[in-house]
Protein backbone atom coordinates (compact mmCIF):
# COMPACT_ATOMS: atom_id res chain seq x y z
CA UNK A 1 0.00 0.00 0.00
CA UNK A 2 1.25 3.46 -0.87
CA UNK A 3 1.95 5.58 2.18
CA UNK A 4 1.15 9.26 2.06
CA UNK A 5 3.71 11.16 4.06
CA UNK A 6 3.44 14.81 4.99
CA UNK A 7 5.76 15.65 2.12
CA UNK A 8 3.63 13.82 -0.45
CA UNK A 9 0.54 15.66 0.71
CA UNK A 10 2.28 19.03 0.56
CA UNK A 11 3.79 18.32 -2.86
CA UNK A 12 0.51 17.20 -4.41
CA UNK A 13 -1.37 20.16 -2.97
CA UNK A 14 1.29 22.53 -4.27
CA UNK A 15 0.94 21.00 -7.73
CA UNK A 16 -2.82 21.48 -7.56
CA UNK A 17 -2.30 25.07 -6.43
CA UNK A 18 -1.04 25.84 -9.95
CA UNK A 19 -4.57 25.23 -11.20
CA UNK A 20 -6.12 27.37 -8.50
CA UNK A 21 -3.79 30.18 -9.56
CA UNK A 22 -4.45 29.60 -13.28
CA UNK A 23 -8.22 29.64 -12.82
CA UNK A 24 -8.04 32.71 -10.58
CA UNK A 25 -5.92 34.58 -13.12
CA UNK A 26 -8.17 33.61 -16.02
CA UNK A 27 -11.31 34.62 -14.13
CA UNK A 28 -9.77 37.85 -12.90
CA UNK A 29 -8.31 38.99 -16.24
CA UNK A 30 -11.32 37.97 -18.36
CA UNK A 31 -13.73 39.14 -15.68
CA UNK A 32 -11.91 42.46 -15.57
CA UNK A 33 -12.27 42.88 -19.33
CA UNK A 34 -15.98 42.00 -19.32
CA UNK A 35 -16.44 44.09 -16.18
CA UNK A 36 -14.93 47.12 -17.94
CA UNK A 37 -17.36 46.70 -20.82
CA UNK A 38 -20.25 46.45 -18.34
CA UNK A 39 -18.95 49.50 -16.52
CA UNK A 40 -19.12 51.48 -19.78
CA UNK A 41 -22.65 50.21 -20.39
CA UNK A 42 -23.65 50.96 -16.80
CA UNK A 43 -22.45 54.56 -17.01
CA UNK A 44 -23.49 55.20 -20.61
CA UNK A 45 -26.21 57.62 -21.68
CA UNK A 46 -28.38 54.95 -23.25
CA UNK A 47 -31.14 53.82 -20.92
CA UNK A 48 -31.21 50.34 -22.48
CA UNK A 49 -27.52 49.74 -22.03
CA UNK A 50 -27.75 50.90 -18.42
CA UNK A 51 -30.69 48.56 -17.78
CA UNK A 52 -29.00 45.59 -19.40
CA UNK A 53 -25.85 46.19 -17.38
CA UNK A 54 -27.66 46.49 -14.07
CA UNK A 55 -29.69 43.34 -14.83
CA UNK A 56 -26.45 41.47 -15.44
CA UNK A 57 -25.04 42.77 -12.15
CA UNK A 58 -28.22 41.97 -10.19
CA UNK A 59 -28.38 38.45 -11.61
CA UNK A 60 -24.82 37.50 -10.87
CA UNK A 61 -24.62 39.23 -7.49
CA UNK A 62 -28.06 37.96 -6.52
CA UNK A 63 -27.54 34.23 -7.01
CA UNK A 64 -25.07 31.76 -5.51
CA UNK A 65 -21.83 31.22 -7.41
CA UNK A 66 -22.34 27.49 -7.05
CA UNK A 67 -25.65 27.71 -8.96
CA UNK A 68 -23.94 29.76 -11.68
CA UNK A 69 -21.29 27.06 -11.94
CA UNK A 70 -23.92 24.32 -12.21
CA UNK A 71 -25.90 26.25 -14.81
CA UNK A 72 -22.84 26.94 -16.92
CA UNK A 73 -21.63 23.34 -16.56
CA UNK A 74 -24.96 21.79 -17.55
CA UNK A 75 -26.39 24.69 -19.53
CA UNK A 76 -23.56 25.24 -22.01
CA UNK A 77 -23.71 21.62 -23.10
CA UNK A 78 -27.45 21.99 -23.73
CA UNK A 79 -26.81 24.57 -26.43
CA UNK A 80 -24.30 22.21 -27.99
CA UNK A 81 -21.05 23.59 -26.66
CA UNK A 82 -18.65 20.93 -25.44
CA UNK A 83 -17.84 21.80 -21.84
CA UNK A 84 -15.03 20.65 -19.65
CA UNK A 85 -14.97 21.46 -15.96
CA UNK A 86 -12.24 24.01 -16.73
CA UNK A 87 -14.20 25.92 -19.38
CA UNK A 88 -17.46 25.86 -17.41
CA UNK A 89 -15.67 27.13 -14.30
CA UNK A 90 -13.83 29.79 -16.28
CA UNK A 91 -17.07 31.03 -17.89
CA UNK A 92 -19.03 31.13 -14.62
CA UNK A 93 -16.24 32.74 -12.62
CA UNK A 94 -15.61 35.29 -15.37
CA UNK A 95 -19.24 36.39 -15.44
CA UNK A 96 -19.45 36.43 -11.64
CA UNK A 97 -16.21 38.45 -11.37
CA UNK A 98 -17.34 40.88 -14.06
CA UNK A 99 -20.54 41.69 -12.18
CA UNK A 100 -18.73 42.49 -8.95
CA UNK A 101 -15.86 44.40 -10.56
CA UNK A 102 -18.28 46.47 -12.65
CA UNK A 103 -20.16 47.45 -9.51
CA UNK A 104 -16.97 48.23 -7.57
CA UNK A 105 -15.66 50.34 -10.42
CA UNK A 106 -18.96 52.13 -10.87
CA UNK A 107 -18.64 53.31 -7.30
CA UNK A 108 -15.18 54.65 -8.12
CA UNK A 109 -16.38 56.41 -11.29
CA UNK A 110 -19.24 58.00 -9.36
CA UNK A 111 -16.76 59.11 -6.73
CA UNK A 112 -15.21 61.49 -9.28
CA UNK A 113 -16.62 64.99 -8.70
CA UNK A 114 -19.23 66.17 -11.20
CA UNK A 115 -17.13 69.22 -11.99
CA UNK A 116 -14.68 66.96 -13.80
CA UNK A 117 -17.46 65.80 -16.14
CA UNK A 118 -18.63 69.37 -16.72
CA UNK A 119 -15.11 70.64 -17.35
CA UNK A 120 -14.34 67.94 -19.87
CA UNK A 121 -17.72 68.42 -21.52
CA UNK A 122 -16.90 72.11 -21.92
CA UNK A 123 -13.81 71.01 -23.87
CA UNK A 124 -16.23 69.32 -26.31
CA UNK A 125 -15.14 65.83 -25.40
CA UNK A 126 -17.43 62.94 -26.28
CA UNK A 127 -18.67 60.64 -23.51
CA UNK A 128 -16.06 58.03 -24.35
CA UNK A 129 -13.32 60.64 -24.47
CA UNK A 130 -14.40 61.95 -21.08
CA UNK A 131 -14.18 58.45 -19.64
CA UNK A 132 -10.88 57.66 -21.33
CA UNK A 133 -8.98 60.89 -20.66
CA UNK A 134 -10.54 62.42 -17.56
CA UNK A 135 -12.61 60.11 -15.40
CA UNK A 136 -10.99 56.68 -15.62
CA UNK A 137 -7.42 57.82 -14.88
CA UNK A 138 -8.65 59.42 -11.68
CA UNK A 139 -11.05 56.59 -10.81
CA UNK A 140 -8.20 54.10 -11.26
CA UNK A 141 -6.45 55.46 -8.19
CA UNK A 142 -9.36 54.83 -5.87
CA UNK A 143 -10.24 51.58 -7.65
CA UNK A 144 -7.02 49.73 -6.95
CA UNK A 145 -7.46 48.83 -3.24
CA UNK A 146 -10.97 47.34 -3.55
CA UNK A 147 -10.00 45.58 -6.79
CA UNK A 148 -7.03 43.91 -5.13
CA UNK A 149 -9.33 43.03 -2.23
CA UNK A 150 -11.78 41.42 -4.62
CA UNK A 151 -8.99 39.27 -6.07
CA UNK A 152 -9.10 37.46 -2.72
CA UNK A 153 -12.79 36.69 -3.28
CA UNK A 154 -11.97 35.32 -6.74
CA UNK A 155 -9.29 32.99 -5.37
CA UNK A 156 -11.70 31.74 -2.71
CA UNK A 157 -14.40 31.42 -5.36
CA UNK A 158 -12.28 29.02 -7.39
CA UNK A 159 -12.66 26.50 -4.54
CA UNK A 160 -16.24 25.99 -5.72
CA UNK A 161 -14.99 24.79 -9.11
CA UNK A 162 -13.97 21.61 -7.29
CA UNK A 163 -17.66 20.74 -7.00
CA UNK A 164 -18.09 20.45 -10.76
CA UNK A 165 -14.94 18.35 -10.86
CA UNK A 166 -12.16 20.80 -11.64
CA UNK A 167 -9.00 19.59 -9.91
CA UNK A 168 -7.56 22.49 -7.93
CA UNK A 169 -6.52 22.69 -4.29
CA UNK A 170 -9.93 21.81 -2.80
CA UNK A 171 -10.61 18.91 -5.15
CA UNK A 172 -7.05 17.67 -4.69
CA UNK A 173 -7.49 17.76 -0.90
CA UNK A 174 -10.60 15.64 -1.15
CA UNK A 175 -8.81 13.18 -3.41
CA UNK A 176 -5.75 13.01 -1.16
CA UNK A 177 -7.97 12.61 1.90
CA UNK A 178 -9.68 9.65 0.25
CA UNK A 179 -6.29 8.03 -0.32
CA UNK A 180 -4.51 8.97 2.88
CA UNK A 181 -7.32 9.09 5.50
CA UNK A 182 -5.79 12.20 7.07
CA UNK A 183 -8.50 14.83 6.61
CA UNK A 184 -7.27 17.01 9.47
CA UNK A 185 -3.78 17.39 8.00
CA UNK A 186 -4.86 17.64 4.38
CA UNK A 187 -7.63 20.20 4.79
CA UNK A 188 -5.49 22.12 7.26
CA UNK A 189 -2.72 22.32 4.65
CA UNK A 190 -5.18 23.31 1.95
CA UNK A 191 -6.35 26.14 4.18
CA UNK A 192 -2.73 27.22 4.66
CA UNK A 193 -2.19 27.28 0.88
CA UNK A 194 -5.23 29.51 0.42
CA UNK A 195 -4.01 31.65 3.30
CA UNK A 196 -0.61 31.99 1.63
CA UNK A 197 -2.28 33.07 -1.62
CA UNK A 198 -4.85 35.43 -0.10
CA UNK A 199 -3.26 37.01 2.94
CA UNK A 200 -0.61 38.98 1.00
CA UNK A 201 -3.34 40.33 -1.28
CA UNK A 202 -5.53 41.28 1.68
CA UNK A 203 -2.67 43.04 3.39
CA UNK A 204 -1.65 44.76 0.17
CA UNK A 205 -5.22 45.99 -0.34
CA UNK A 206 -5.38 47.34 3.20
CA UNK A 207 -2.01 49.03 2.85
CA UNK A 208 -3.00 50.71 -0.42
CA UNK A 209 -6.27 51.85 1.09
CA UNK A 210 -4.54 53.41 4.07
CA UNK A 211 -2.06 55.19 1.81
CA UNK A 212 -4.87 56.53 -0.33
CA UNK A 213 -6.68 57.84 2.74
CA UNK A 214 -3.54 59.65 3.87
CA UNK A 215 -3.24 61.22 0.43
CA UNK A 216 -6.86 62.32 0.59
CA UNK A 217 -6.47 63.98 3.96
CA UNK A 218 -3.90 66.46 2.68
Amino acid at each position, binding site marked *: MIQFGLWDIARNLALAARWTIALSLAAFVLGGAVGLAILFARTSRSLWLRRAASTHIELFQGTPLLMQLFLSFFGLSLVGIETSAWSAAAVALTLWTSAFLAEIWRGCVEGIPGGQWDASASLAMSHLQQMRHVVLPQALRIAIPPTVGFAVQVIKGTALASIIGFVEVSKASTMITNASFKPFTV*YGMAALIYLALCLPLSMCSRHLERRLHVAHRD
Partner: protein
Amino acid sequence: MTYQLDFGGLLQYADLLAKGVGLTVTLITVGGASGVAVGMFGAWARGFSRMSWLSALVGCYVELIRNTPFLVQLLFIFFGLPSAGIQLSAVNAALLAIVVNLGAYATEIIRAGVEAVPRSQIEAAASLGMSRLQMFGHVVLQPALQKIWPALTSQLVIVMFGSAVCSQIAAEELTFAASFIQSRSFRAFEVYFVATGIYLALALLLRQGMRLLGQAVIFRRAS
Protein backbone atom coordinates in the same frame (compact mmCIF):
# COMPACT_ATOMS: atom_id res chain seq x y z
CA MET B 1 -32.13 16.20 -31.84
CA THR B 2 -32.35 19.36 -29.84
CA TYR B 3 -32.96 19.43 -26.14
CA GLN B 4 -36.49 20.24 -25.01
CA LEU B 5 -36.77 22.15 -21.76
CA ASP B 6 -39.31 20.56 -19.44
CA PHE B 7 -40.12 22.24 -16.17
CA GLY B 8 -43.39 20.31 -15.61
CA GLY B 9 -41.54 17.18 -14.58
CA LEU B 10 -40.22 19.01 -11.53
CA LEU B 11 -43.64 19.42 -9.97
CA GLN B 12 -43.58 15.97 -8.37
CA TYR B 13 -40.43 16.98 -6.49
CA ALA B 14 -41.92 20.17 -5.06
CA ASP B 15 -42.01 18.88 -1.48
CA LEU B 16 -38.33 17.92 -1.68
CA LEU B 17 -37.46 21.42 -2.80
CA ALA B 18 -39.65 22.86 -0.03
CA LYS B 19 -37.79 20.79 2.55
CA GLY B 20 -34.51 22.03 1.14
CA VAL B 21 -35.68 25.62 1.35
CA GLY B 22 -36.66 24.94 4.97
CA LEU B 23 -33.16 23.86 5.93
CA THR B 24 -31.55 26.72 4.00
CA VAL B 25 -33.78 29.16 5.89
CA THR B 26 -32.93 27.47 9.20
CA LEU B 27 -29.21 27.63 8.42
CA ILE B 28 -29.32 31.31 7.60
CA THR B 29 -31.53 32.36 10.52
CA VAL B 30 -29.90 30.28 13.28
CA GLY B 31 -26.40 30.53 11.81
CA GLY B 32 -26.89 34.18 10.98
CA ALA B 33 -28.06 35.18 14.46
CA SER B 34 -25.28 33.23 16.17
CA GLY B 35 -22.70 34.52 13.71
CA VAL B 36 -23.68 38.12 14.33
CA ALA B 37 -23.48 37.46 18.08
CA VAL B 38 -19.94 36.15 17.59
CA GLY B 39 -19.25 39.25 15.52
CA MET B 40 -20.44 41.53 18.33
CA PHE B 41 -18.16 39.75 20.78
CA GLY B 42 -15.31 39.93 18.26
CA ALA B 43 -15.86 43.64 17.67
CA TRP B 44 -15.84 44.25 21.42
CA ALA B 45 -12.66 42.21 21.87
CA ARG B 46 -10.96 43.84 18.89
CA GLY B 47 -11.93 47.45 19.32
CA PHE B 48 -13.06 47.96 22.87
CA SER B 49 -11.64 45.51 25.37
CA ARG B 50 -8.37 46.42 27.04
CA MET B 51 -7.01 42.88 26.73
CA SER B 52 -4.40 42.98 23.99
CA TRP B 53 -3.94 39.20 23.88
CA LEU B 54 -7.67 38.73 23.24
CA SER B 55 -7.63 41.39 20.56
CA ALA B 56 -4.65 39.72 18.87
CA LEU B 57 -6.33 36.32 19.07
CA VAL B 58 -9.52 37.62 17.48
CA GLY B 59 -7.40 39.36 14.84
CA CYS B 60 -5.77 36.04 13.88
CA TYR B 61 -9.18 34.35 13.76
CA VAL B 62 -10.55 37.04 11.46
CA GLU B 63 -7.57 36.88 9.07
CA LEU B 64 -7.56 33.09 9.01
CA ILE B 65 -11.26 32.84 8.15
CA ARG B 66 -11.40 35.73 5.72
CA ASN B 67 -8.51 34.41 3.67
CA THR B 68 -9.64 30.80 3.24
CA PRO B 69 -12.62 29.52 1.23
CA PHE B 70 -15.82 28.59 3.04
CA LEU B 71 -15.74 25.19 1.33
CA VAL B 72 -12.38 24.32 2.89
CA GLN B 73 -13.57 25.50 6.32
CA LEU B 74 -16.64 23.33 5.96
CA LEU B 75 -14.70 20.25 4.86
CA PHE B 76 -12.20 20.80 7.67
CA ILE B 77 -14.96 20.96 10.27
CA PHE B 78 -16.90 18.00 8.93
CA PHE B 79 -14.07 15.64 7.92
CA GLY B 80 -11.10 17.00 9.85
CA LEU B 81 -12.48 17.62 13.34
CA PRO B 82 -13.57 14.00 13.97
CA SER B 83 -9.88 13.03 14.09
CA ALA B 84 -9.55 15.61 16.89
CA GLY B 85 -12.46 13.90 18.64
CA ILE B 86 -15.24 16.30 17.66
CA GLN B 87 -17.91 14.52 15.66
CA LEU B 88 -20.76 16.56 14.22
CA SER B 89 -23.78 15.70 12.10
CA ALA B 90 -23.90 17.27 8.65
CA VAL B 91 -26.40 19.94 9.69
CA ASN B 92 -24.49 20.80 12.86
CA ALA B 93 -21.21 20.97 10.96
CA ALA B 94 -22.84 23.25 8.39
CA LEU B 95 -24.20 25.46 11.17
CA LEU B 96 -20.84 25.61 12.94
CA ALA B 97 -19.07 26.48 9.68
CA ILE B 98 -21.56 29.26 8.99
CA VAL B 99 -21.22 30.69 12.51
CA VAL B 100 -17.41 30.57 12.37
CA ASN B 101 -17.34 32.10 8.89
CA LEU B 102 -19.92 34.82 9.46
CA GLY B 103 -18.44 35.57 12.89
CA ALA B 104 -15.17 36.66 11.29
CA TYR B 105 -16.79 38.89 8.68
CA ALA B 106 -19.27 40.33 11.17
CA THR B 107 -16.40 41.14 13.54
CA GLU B 108 -14.78 43.32 10.90
CA ILE B 109 -18.05 44.92 9.84
CA ILE B 110 -19.24 45.74 13.35
CA ARG B 111 -15.77 46.93 14.36
CA ALA B 112 -15.91 49.47 11.54
CA GLY B 113 -19.20 50.71 13.00
CA VAL B 114 -17.74 50.85 16.50
CA GLU B 115 -14.84 52.93 15.25
CA ALA B 116 -17.25 55.35 13.62
CA VAL B 117 -18.98 56.18 16.93
CA PRO B 118 -17.87 59.70 17.93
CA ARG B 119 -15.29 59.84 20.72
CA SER B 120 -17.34 62.35 22.66
CA GLN B 121 -20.09 59.75 23.14
CA ILE B 122 -17.63 57.38 24.74
CA GLU B 123 -16.15 60.13 26.89
CA ALA B 124 -19.63 61.14 28.00
CA ALA B 125 -20.36 57.53 28.97
CA ALA B 126 -17.07 57.33 30.83
CA SER B 127 -17.93 60.50 32.75
CA LEU B 128 -21.10 58.75 33.94
CA GLY B 129 -18.87 56.13 35.54
CA MET B 130 -19.80 53.32 33.14
CA SER B 131 -17.48 50.32 32.82
CA ARG B 132 -16.02 49.51 29.39
CA LEU B 133 -18.53 46.70 28.98
CA GLN B 134 -21.46 48.92 29.93
CA MET B 135 -20.29 51.59 27.52
CA PHE B 136 -20.14 49.03 24.72
CA GLY B 137 -23.56 47.62 25.48
CA HIS B 138 -25.48 50.80 26.27
CA VAL B 139 -23.76 53.53 24.28
CA VAL B 140 -21.68 52.18 21.42
CA LEU B 141 -23.40 49.10 20.02
CA GLN B 142 -26.67 50.57 18.77
CA PRO B 143 -25.28 53.51 16.77
CA ALA B 144 -22.54 51.19 15.49
CA LEU B 145 -25.12 48.68 14.24
CA GLN B 146 -27.16 51.48 12.66
CA LYS B 147 -24.14 52.53 10.61
CA ILE B 148 -23.27 49.06 9.36
CA TRP B 149 -26.75 47.52 9.03
CA PRO B 150 -26.71 47.56 5.18
CA ALA B 151 -23.24 45.97 5.08
CA LEU B 152 -24.31 43.33 7.57
CA THR B 153 -27.39 42.58 5.46
CA SER B 154 -25.24 42.09 2.36
CA GLN B 155 -22.91 39.80 4.28
CA LEU B 156 -25.87 37.67 5.41
CA VAL B 157 -26.98 37.36 1.79
CA ILE B 158 -23.45 36.31 0.82
CA VAL B 159 -23.47 33.72 3.62
CA MET B 160 -26.80 32.37 2.39
CA PHE B 161 -25.32 31.94 -1.09
CA GLY B 162 -22.35 30.28 0.55
CA SER B 163 -24.66 27.85 2.33
CA ALA B 164 -25.27 26.25 -1.08
CA VAL B 165 -21.87 24.64 -0.54
CA CYS B 166 -23.21 22.75 2.51
CA SER B 167 -24.73 20.28 0.04
CA GLN B 168 -21.19 18.93 -0.28
CA ILE B 169 -21.30 17.39 3.19
CA ALA B 170 -24.83 16.10 2.56
CA ALA B 171 -26.66 18.69 4.62
CA GLU B 172 -30.02 18.46 2.91
CA GLU B 173 -30.56 22.10 2.02
CA LEU B 174 -31.81 23.63 -1.21
CA THR B 175 -28.79 22.79 -3.37
CA PHE B 176 -28.70 19.26 -2.02
CA ALA B 177 -32.35 18.85 -2.94
CA ALA B 178 -31.67 20.26 -6.40
CA SER B 179 -28.74 17.89 -6.97
CA PHE B 180 -30.81 14.96 -5.72
CA ILE B 181 -33.64 15.79 -8.10
CA GLN B 182 -31.10 16.25 -10.89
CA SER B 183 -29.73 12.76 -10.29
CA ARG B 184 -33.25 11.32 -10.44
CA SER B 185 -34.70 13.24 -13.36
CA PHE B 186 -31.55 14.16 -15.35
CA ARG B 187 -33.18 17.57 -15.83
CA ALA B 188 -30.05 19.35 -14.65
CA PHE B 189 -30.59 22.70 -16.28
CA GLU B 190 -34.24 23.05 -15.28
CA VAL B 191 -33.64 22.03 -11.67
CA TYR B 192 -30.70 24.37 -11.14
CA PHE B 193 -32.52 27.14 -12.94
CA VAL B 194 -35.46 26.82 -10.55
CA ALA B 195 -33.14 26.56 -7.53
CA THR B 196 -31.32 29.70 -8.65
CA GLY B 197 -34.65 31.49 -8.90
CA ILE B 198 -35.52 30.37 -5.38
CA TYR B 199 -32.20 31.71 -4.09
CA LEU B 200 -32.91 35.02 -5.79
CA ALA B 201 -36.31 35.18 -4.06
CA LEU B 202 -34.81 34.15 -0.71
CA ALA B 203 -32.22 36.91 -1.03
CA LEU B 204 -34.96 39.48 -1.57
CA LEU B 205 -36.90 38.11 1.42
CA LEU B 206 -33.79 38.16 3.58
CA ARG B 207 -33.07 41.79 2.69
CA GLN B 208 -36.67 42.72 3.45
CA GLY B 209 -36.58 40.80 6.73
CA MET B 210 -33.38 42.51 7.78
CA ARG B 211 -34.90 45.90 6.94
CA LEU B 212 -37.91 45.17 9.15
CA LEU B 213 -35.74 43.76 11.92
CA GLY B 214 -33.57 46.84 11.73
CA GLN B 215 -36.58 49.13 12.02
CA ALA B 216 -37.93 47.18 14.98
CA VAL B 217 -34.71 46.79 16.94
CA ILE B 218 -31.81 48.87 15.69
CA PHE B 219 -33.37 52.09 14.43
CA ARG B 220 -35.96 52.25 17.21
CA ARG B 221 -35.91 55.49 19.12
CA ALA B 222 -35.77 55.34 22.89
CA SER B 223 -39.20 56.33 24.12
